[in-house]
């Protein structure tokens, strides 16, 4: 408003009051701008934690495809993480058809006579190999060994193999989940037409196994 400031004249003295007000305004506006920019950016960086991707049910094949008392390696695709995951979306699991007549695990929970193990060793996550001639899983990294029921046999793993939650669906549209009672009532042929599914999506670690409450007993 008044006349232009002459750069060669000393500036008029600012009162300490005004200086303090301007100082706090600068700090305040700076903080406000930082928060307005920073909070969304922080949200973006922590997005994978805030907007967690859940596990989902994945088909492994027809029940009839898995012979009794045998452990089979099957490949499947993880629920989509990102569209350009490429090969990283592929995963494997060991399906063991334990029994054609007993449909619960040692804790009494329904499993349809199946147990599906993750290939990740419980020690540090290397893929284990199944040896049918000796009935053992061997890990190449540090020599961890597991029995056919997934219990730890020897070596550094702190627990047995991680196992997936399983369920069975009738094929066709729409898909229907089969309840334990229905499963028990079916005959062997009918059961063979069901689709075996596992709940997959995250890499199992010691404090985050594939099934809630899975403590993984050692042998």
């Amino acid at each position, binding site marked *: 408003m008044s006349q232009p400031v002459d750069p060669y004249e000393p500036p008029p003295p600012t009162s300490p009051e005004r200086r303090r007000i301007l100082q706090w305004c600068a700090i305040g506006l700076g903080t406000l701008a930082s928060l307005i920019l920073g909070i969304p950016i922080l949200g973006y960086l922590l997005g994978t934690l805030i907007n967690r991707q859940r596990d989902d049910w994945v088909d492994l094949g027809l029940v009839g495809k898995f012979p009794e008392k045998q452990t089979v390696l099957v490949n499947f695709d993880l629920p989509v993480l990102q569209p350009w995951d490429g090969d990283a979306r592929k995963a494997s699991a060991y399906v063991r058809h334990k029994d054609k007549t007993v449909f619960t695990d040692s804790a009494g929970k329904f499993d349809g006579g199946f147990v599906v193990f993750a290939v990740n060793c419980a020690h540090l996550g290397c893929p284990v190999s199944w040896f049918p001639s000796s009935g053992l899983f061997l890990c190449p990294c540090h*020599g961890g060994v597991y029995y056919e029921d997934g219990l730890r046999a020897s070596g550094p793993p702190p627990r047995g193999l991680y196992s997936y939650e399983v369920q069975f669906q009738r094929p066709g549209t729409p898909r229907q989940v089969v309840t334990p009672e229905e499963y028990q009532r079916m005959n062997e042929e009918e059961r063979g037409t069901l689709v075996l599914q596992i709940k997959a999506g995250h890499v199992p670690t010691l404090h985050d196994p594939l099934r809630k409450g899975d403590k993984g007993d050692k042998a």
Partner: protein
Amino acid sequence: MSWLRAIGAWLEERLGLRDSIWPVMRHPVPSGARWWYVFGSATLTLFMVQVITGICLALVYVPAPDQAFQSLEYMNYDQYLGWLLRAIHYYAATGMVCMMFVHMTQVFLFGAFKYPRELTWLVGVGLLALTLFMGFSGQVLRWDQDAFWGLNVAASMAGRVPLIGPQVVNLLLGGPAVGAASLSRFFTLHVFIVPALLILLISVHLYLVLKKGISEPPVPGRPVDPKTYEAEYHKVIDKGEPFFPDAVWRDAIVSFVAVVVVVIVAAWLGPYGPRSIPDPTLIQANPRPDWYFLWMFALLALSPPEVETFIMLVFPAVLFGILIAFPFVAGKGERSWRRRPISVLLVIVVFISFVVLTYLGAVAPWSPEMEAWSSTPVPEKMIRWRDAQEPPQWHNVTPEQLQGAVVLQNKNCRDCHALDGKGGQRGPDLTDVATRLTRDQLIRQVIQGGGNMPAYGKQLKPAEVDALVDFLGTLHGGEAPAHSSAPASP
């Protein structure tokens, strides 16, 4: 050439470099500086090589899992001189880690971390951590089987953090499992975030080196006393020589040699990997970290399982804590290594441990040989042999012992046990097991296992156990077989 001088004068009038850069270049350094002091600048030179070659690689490399491997193959085989750029980047990384450790050892043994250069050392420890991270993330970007499963191993380790383990894994991988987000995350860290931090810390490191001056060569009997050090140092510097050109020529020569050696080795050995395709369904993987982490791999493999979580998560922090503590615990006193026997001992012990652990990590005797059961046959001399008669007669093991040898192979025993030196190294070599264990002891060991061996009781039928132990009982190589000291029952 006077037009060149005219351009120089025009620039100098506006940049004023002569006033700012020239005094720095001519700053005095202690006269006895010698060749020991060149390793810091060699590390810096190789870092600059990494930045340049890294930019070149980023022109072709695609950080997406469905294309990373192919883009690296393209670099190796189709891109003009792509193989050489990849090789230089890999071997300069090796060179930089080596030069950094030599520099650190030299600074430590010369006591140059003591007053007043403690902060320079601390910044250096930060540079060490960042450089090692660059090595690890660089391997991840190679995105082959080692990288993919190595990342799974890192996630398993991170998952052991109490309370927040799953959250740490999620942040490390950028999601619930190893995928595109993981690769992007490590790419961003390796290319943007950590190099920026490195450049920042290097600037601080160099600023401190200039501000505090190059340390004078240590003299036994002349300890560092903060009260008198500055005055003493000034006396040394007054008799010093200008950094440029009287001291820097040594740095220039060593940096030159380092660059030339890296390029020659790169051209001779070619690029490293990518090795196997990172397909998670190929489960015959056997991941290994790059050489500068093999010692950690060995340390974890050899630790008792009970303390493994501690060693994984706390031990690296303890190591860095010790490094950070040096200027505070030993910040004064004698600088010369001749008067610091504990420091010399520390360096020797660390160096020997590193070499031994790295060797063990490379050989990995704790890993079973997954194919040995089907690819490494029982040595023929354990099945049939000739005696010393004239003419020599052939002898065979009995049919049951032969069946025992078949059981030994089929039950994957050879994956952990060698015969005649061939086979797995995880368990003892069984060539003369019968000189150590009696028949009863063999039966117990097979059925009950123990230690790193599983119990085979339920995996073998009783007849198989008999045959196996029968065969193992023949393995005493001509020596007397073991027998129990208990007298036979009358």
